[in-house]
């Protein structure tokens, strides 16, 4: 399906043209472009901020998306506030009806402030980038606007972002210490349970073991989309446990160039990429850029996507630490081939379910709800890393490839992939169900 024939936002059922209360509509409104520029900055910061593992990144994407969405919704008669719909989000400060505002300036302001909050711990180069981006995008947003509109919009933007940041502080994910690795943790000695897989000292304990207990955004709790248990540990060659390990071994010892390319394309390693949730944000960013989407749609897409993936990682981590399942490298080295090495770096936390699968399942479900089934697209998000581009007939197909890439990479068994996708699709329904249009 081409971009020109796609549906407008399905979920709200409203036309893309929004009515603004007290807002200033300019010809060639650049709010959507400014928001996307901020997301481009955010994607770089995710890659280059040391605490930004996939769960942490997903959380930031959710709050940034909500902030951007509320920047528009606060002045719209057709968009509905998320207050009362998202867990813990109470009524947000309203605009002053006697004043005139610019949605683009408010969106810029909330993004600039929120980015500084969520990435305040980035390095000196990131700090420099944030300052340069704020200066440039502020100039773009303010261009041609009356002083009174600018002043009111900036002031409201600061008020709104303060409320959003305040909401974020007690969700359980605001403070990341030691790059997310606990200083102590009771690692199980029982077979079939997670064991450290890296020679890196800080990774002898698993990443973010309490993340699954964080406050969720749209779904009731981290356990809302629970999964069946993975195969029980067994050393019986005919057991499901050994069979799944043998499958990984067989596949990875006969990888085709295409399978290697797929594994690398979806590897999305922290610190070396914008992480799995960032990968989907990058896909959405490019789609919005291609259609030159306005601020309202850009914000809503990023909000739904961010909320779905953040809930996805909470749900995934909830299950990971419930089952505390062993990684393929541990099993294969013990039972099949002591010299076997996976293509990808094994992530330092339990195996089941696959985080990329849950996150991708959630992301694909949201984007499918917005853009439709069988929406073909080209993913160029890793072009600068020399990984080329990949074409997909649908978001679901992309998610399935993201999932199976983890088997090609040798870091997940099949059940973790398949159940991860199921879990992601389940969790996404809560984000898809958020009411954004007053007409529905």
């Amino acid at each position, binding site marked *: 399906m081409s971009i020109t024939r796609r549906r407008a936002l399905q979920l709200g059922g409203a036309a893309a043209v929004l009515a603004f209360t007290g807002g200033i509509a300019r010809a060639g409104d650049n709010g959507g472009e400014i928001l996307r520029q901020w997301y481009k900055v955010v994607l770089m910061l995710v890659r280059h901020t040391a*605490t930004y593992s996939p769960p942490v990144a997903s959380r930031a994407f959710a709050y940034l998306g909500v902030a951007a969405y509320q920047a528009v919704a606060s002045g719209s008669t057709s968009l509905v506030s998320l207050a009362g719909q998202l867990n813990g989000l109470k009524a947000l400060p309203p605009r002053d009806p006697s004043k005139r505002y610019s949605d683009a300036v408010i969106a810029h302001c909330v993004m600039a402030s929120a980015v500084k909050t969520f990435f305040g711990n980035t*390095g000196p180069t990131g700090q420099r*980038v944030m300052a340069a981006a704020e200066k440039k995008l502020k100039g773009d947003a303010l261009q041609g606007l009356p002083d009174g509109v600018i002043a009111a919009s900036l002031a409201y933007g600061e008020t709104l972002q303060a409320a959003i940041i305040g909401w974020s502080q007690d969700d359980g994910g605001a403070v990341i210490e030691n790059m997310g690795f606990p200083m102590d943790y009771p690692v199980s000695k029982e077979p079939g349970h997670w064991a450290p897989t890296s020679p890196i*000292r800080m990774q002898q304990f698993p990443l973010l073991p309490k993340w699954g207990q964080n406050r969720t955004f749209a779904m009731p709790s981290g356990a809302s989309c629970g999964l069946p248990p993975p195969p029980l540990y067994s050393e019986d060659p005919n057991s499901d446990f050994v069979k799944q390990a043998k499958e990984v071994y067989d596949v990875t010892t006969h990888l085709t160039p295409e399978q290697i390319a797929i594994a690398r394309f979806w590897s999305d390693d922290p610190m070396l990429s914008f992480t799995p949730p960032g990968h989907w944000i990058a896909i959405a960013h490019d789609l919005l850029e291609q259609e030159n989407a306005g601020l309202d749609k850009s914000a809503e897409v990023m909000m739904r996507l961010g909320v779905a993936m953040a809930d996805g990682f909470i749900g995934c981590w909830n299950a990971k630490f419930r089952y505390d399942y062993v990684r393929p490298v541990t099993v294969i080295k013990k039972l099949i081939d002591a010299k076997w090495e996976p293509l990808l770096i094994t992530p330092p936390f339990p195996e089941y379910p696959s985080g990329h699968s849950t996150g991708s399942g959630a992301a694909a479900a949201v984007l499918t709800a917005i853009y439709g089934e069988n929406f073909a697209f080209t993913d160029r998000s890793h072009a*600068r890393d*020399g*990984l080329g581009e990949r074409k997909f007939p649908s978001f679901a197909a992309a998610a399935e490839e993201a999932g199976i890439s983890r088997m090609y990479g040798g870091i997940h068994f099949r059940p973790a992939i398949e159940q991860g996708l199921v879990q992601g699709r389940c969790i996404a329904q809560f984000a898809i169900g958020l009411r954004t249009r007053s007409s529905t």
Partner: protein
Amino acid sequence: MRTFAIASATLLISARAALAGGGPVVPSFVEETKTSGIASVYSGEWQYMVGGGAAAFDCNDDGFEDVLIAGGGKPATFYLNKSTHGGALKFEKHTSGLEFDAMTGAYPLDADGDGIMDVVALRVGENMLMKGKGNCQFARANEDWGFAGGDGWSTAYAATWENGNDWPTIAIGNYIDRTEELEPWGSCTPNVLQRPRDGGKGFAPPLELKPSYCPLSMLFTDWNNSGTPDLRMANDREYYEGGQEQMWQVRPGQPPKLYRKEDGWAYLRIWGMGLAGYDLDGDGFQEYAITSMADNKLQTLKEPPKDGSAPKPTYKDVAWPRGVTAHRPFMGTDLKPSTAWHIDFQDVNNDGLADLFIAKGNVSEMPDFAMKDPNNLLVQGKDGKFIEMADKAGVASTETSRGAALADFNLDGLVDLLVVNRNAPTQVWRNVTPAAGNWIEVKLRQPGGNVNAIGAMVEVKTPTGRQTREVVSGGGHVSGQSGWVHFGIGDAKQAEVRVRWPGEDWGKPMTLGANRFAVLDKTKAEAEAWTPNP
């Protein structure tokens, strides 16, 4: 010139050089920063967040190593070494012609082979190749020698003499494009290689070493004992896209060629910041230590050949079993992950086993990493494992350290320490280890352009073991040395010394007495004893 050593795994530790419990001698240092005469601070804005190096070399033929210290946004400072033999460390500020601003680090290199040390100054902007004129004076030689200073943000250097050349081949590593405010990541400026000009003095135009991945250290090193060094790079993953650690095969008359997966080169992506080599297991192949953030690597060949065949450049990480991960502060209350920079192997207690110094310091107010990050002095025990002794030795500075020089500044046979800090004074420590073992120190001389025999291997044998050091120019973190090659020899009263001169086989052994300096001249059958002035 810095030196890397190879210690035999069978080296026995003398009773004198060991603690009663069997552990290594605890080194002892006295900080003499305030009385040393050195008052230098590496500082500056964003473009000086990396760098902060020092070059240690003798510029006035008194045998004592003088020091150039980069100043970042401020001019570099040069100090004459006024220490006396075995005395306190004393330096005197001296106007040398090297006092450039925007300097990130520097390395000594006698590029023109006239026996007077020249200096390569790495800068944010144009790099300088400064010709030594004698008596610690230097003059710009970029134009005379065809040295391409460029206009990059230079953060790494290495040099070698390719076989048959009278002039060196110089590699310069460049960081990101400093003009990129909005998208600096992925903007690594190409690294360059300058080879000698055909048939004359100086250099041919530079070759770009692409792809370039923002190295913070480079080292020409003979990793496979082929007699021809290759170029290793420690690359900073913070800034490259699609990059990894690299090693270039550099062969005379041929374009540089990157080692690839098909050759056995293993994929590794870290915040590579410093590089040092040393054969710790006595198999004849060097291990390589690479500094990073939250973790440090010690690489050993995965499958070292036992039949004399050529190894594949496939390394595995043995930092943890060797005890050198140094991933977080070992003392204090700030236990966030560490940030590691300069790294060097030196035997600080003269027991015949190489020890490891690592300079630590936050990049710049990065709250997820330790702000009080003590430097490490990891002392090797006879079991091959390293034990942290920086606090006991008195060198556990928690300033924001960057580069360093480990050299025998007062010529008493003990390796002293100078550490360059960012936004804090450079610190100096004198090694006063009371129970240290015996030692020898040598300098190499040979005819031709490569007068200091960069690329040579020096072997020292005593009844208790064998050590070998590679004479290199590069590595560490923007810091280099050219001076006495130091060996601890434990209780031995003498040692048998031989040299594998660059491009040649091992020479005949010579016997040197313990606790002596000697000049090894390739043209002479015997070593020349040297004695420092009192």
